[in-house]
């Protein structure tokens, strides 16, 4: 009998620990919201762009090395994911969800884009459920993933008609941009569901350092890998344009 107990007890303890550990895991939802001038951005609705009417209808980007930090140390939530703002009939939002072990965290960081070691891979290297498998976000000419897409239309004549299409795509290793944002209050993951509300202020994405906005009418497209002026401004602005609500 004693022998039997000595065998069963460790198994029971192990089982208890496994079940116990599993119960403590929680969910962290990163709720990205596209904003414009402090208000929720509705895709294709008119917003004011430095005095001109503008419509944004595409905004999407890769996020990599998503990390929570705090008392519990650093925890990498995901390697590379894709945020695609949708909601053509309402607010543009996107959510990434992660299973997270217990801990206390007060800071979120991630990079916009794809890290260099993955940027040498191609969509065919991944299975279709992975973010990097999408051929729509890889550009053969650059031999690179497209880190972000920001597209829309601008009224260049002042007649209320958004006549000019702008398309800014970026994707070069040097544009891989880190975003670090402190959480408004620390989250304690303990078997519960936690939401982190992340605003992406699109008005900020177009701002030039030192004042003013990108001259969309002068350069409505960014395709050329040798001309990174506009993509650099846009990617760099994610550092300040991303905030925690």
């Amino acid at each position, binding site marked *: 009998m004693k022998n039997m107990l000595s065998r069963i007890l460790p198994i029971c303890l192990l089982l208890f620990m496994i079940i116990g550990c599993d119960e403590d895991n929680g969910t962290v939802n990163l709720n990205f919201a596209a904003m414009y001038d402090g208000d929720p951005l509705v895709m294709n609705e008119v917003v004011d762009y430095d005095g001109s009417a503008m419509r944004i209808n595409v905004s999407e980007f890769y996020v990599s090395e998503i990390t929570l930090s705090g008392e519990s140390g650093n925890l990498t939530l995901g390697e590379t994911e894709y945020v695609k703002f949708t909601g053509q009939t309402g607010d543009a939002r996107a959510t990434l969800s992660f299973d997270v072990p217990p801990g206390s965290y007060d800071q979120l960081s991630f990079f916009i884009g794809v890290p260099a070691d993955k940027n040498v891979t191609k969509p065919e290297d991944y299975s279709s459920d992975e973010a990097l498998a999408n*051929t729509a976000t890889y550009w053969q000419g650059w031999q690179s993933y497209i880190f972000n897409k920001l597209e829309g239309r601008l009224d260049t004549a002042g007649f209320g*008609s958004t006549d000019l299409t702008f398309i800014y795509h970026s994707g070069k290793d040097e544009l891989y941009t880190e975003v670090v944002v402190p959480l408004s209050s620390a989250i304690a993951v303990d078997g519960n569901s936690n939401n982190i509300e992340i605003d992406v202020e699109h008005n900020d994405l177009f701002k030039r350092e030192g004042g003013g906005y990108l001259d969309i009418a002068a350069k409505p497209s960014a395709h050329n890998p040798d001309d990174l002026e506009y993509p650099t401004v846009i990617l760099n602005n994610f550092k300040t344009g991303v905030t925690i609500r």
Partner: protein
Amino acid sequence: MKNSYRYRWAILTCFVILLGWVGCQDDDMLINQMPAEDRDLTMIPFAPDSFNLVIPEGFPKMEHPEDNPQTQQGVLLGRMLFFDPILSLDSTVSCATCHKPELSFTDGLAFSVGVGGRTGRRSSMSLLNVGFHGPVGLFWDGRAKTLEEQALEPIVDPNEMANTWEEVELRLRRHAEYPDHVRTAFGIQRSSQVTRDHVVKALAQFQRTLVSSGDSDWDRKDRNEFSLDDDAATGEELFFDDIFPDAECGHCHNVKLFTIPEFRNNGLDPVDSVDDYSDKGLGGVTGNRLDNGKFKIPSLRNILLTAPYMHDGRFETIEEVMEHYNSGGHHVTNQDEDNVDNLIRPLNLSERNKREIIAFLGALTDSTFIKNESFQSPF
């Protein structure tokens, strides 16, 4: 003696007439007249061999449903069913009627013709590389998520095969050969166990074999085994925006499949509102009116073999297609709901540019694929 001679001749004549009459009968009518014998098939071995699918280097992984692994026996059955008009109401239309190998599995028509000469509302899509459809699904509007799901529809579509699944199952169960093939592919034990599930799985298995050969001029150029001529080489640079003017083609027709897994509105029709599109496309499936006018992006591999173009075959030539894109197409007048792709804008391509891009498209022609013996009718 003379009477006996006449008598023999009369019997022989009757026999010949009877033979001729029987011979003229439709095979399926004969099958339907056969007794519904439920044959025991367990004497036939069931030991399916896995199918060795050859995929060119650099292509994406093909995903197979767990409940429908590709086998040699399943592919053979699917190939037989694909080319057999037995699936249609009057045994006149097969899958191959609208998907001919020599036309890269299209039919050369704006609207495919089904049983009784009836026509549908969309052009048949090429089946080249159809197994790589990914998350966008199948049909121009993506309404079927898998090849198995897709195969359920044409058999009962009144404008295509106009049949019922009950009738198809009955015919196949009574058929002299199909139950044996279903046994070898899927392991049924009796002929009465043939179901539509076996039909769609076999068709899907065959269609997943319809993969590029990797022998097109562009594929060989991509492997540094071949050089495109000057026009095609320049066309490629225009296609992928490597030189000005940007032709913007590569955004939606990206390597290696020359498509991307998305739906787009490419500005074919001048409309005031998205509600005005006569064919709603994706919007007809999702119910989201801002999806109206969006269609699946077709691959450009073998594009010169698959005229006419667009979901409704409105462009008879590739030159007309080029002209459409160069013109900038038509946006929705109500800008609040304009869902036409941002890349649909005047391109300012010269006549020479257009010729060069078409020369490049010619480099995507895969003659080896369309001549592949494994893709032809087994009958």
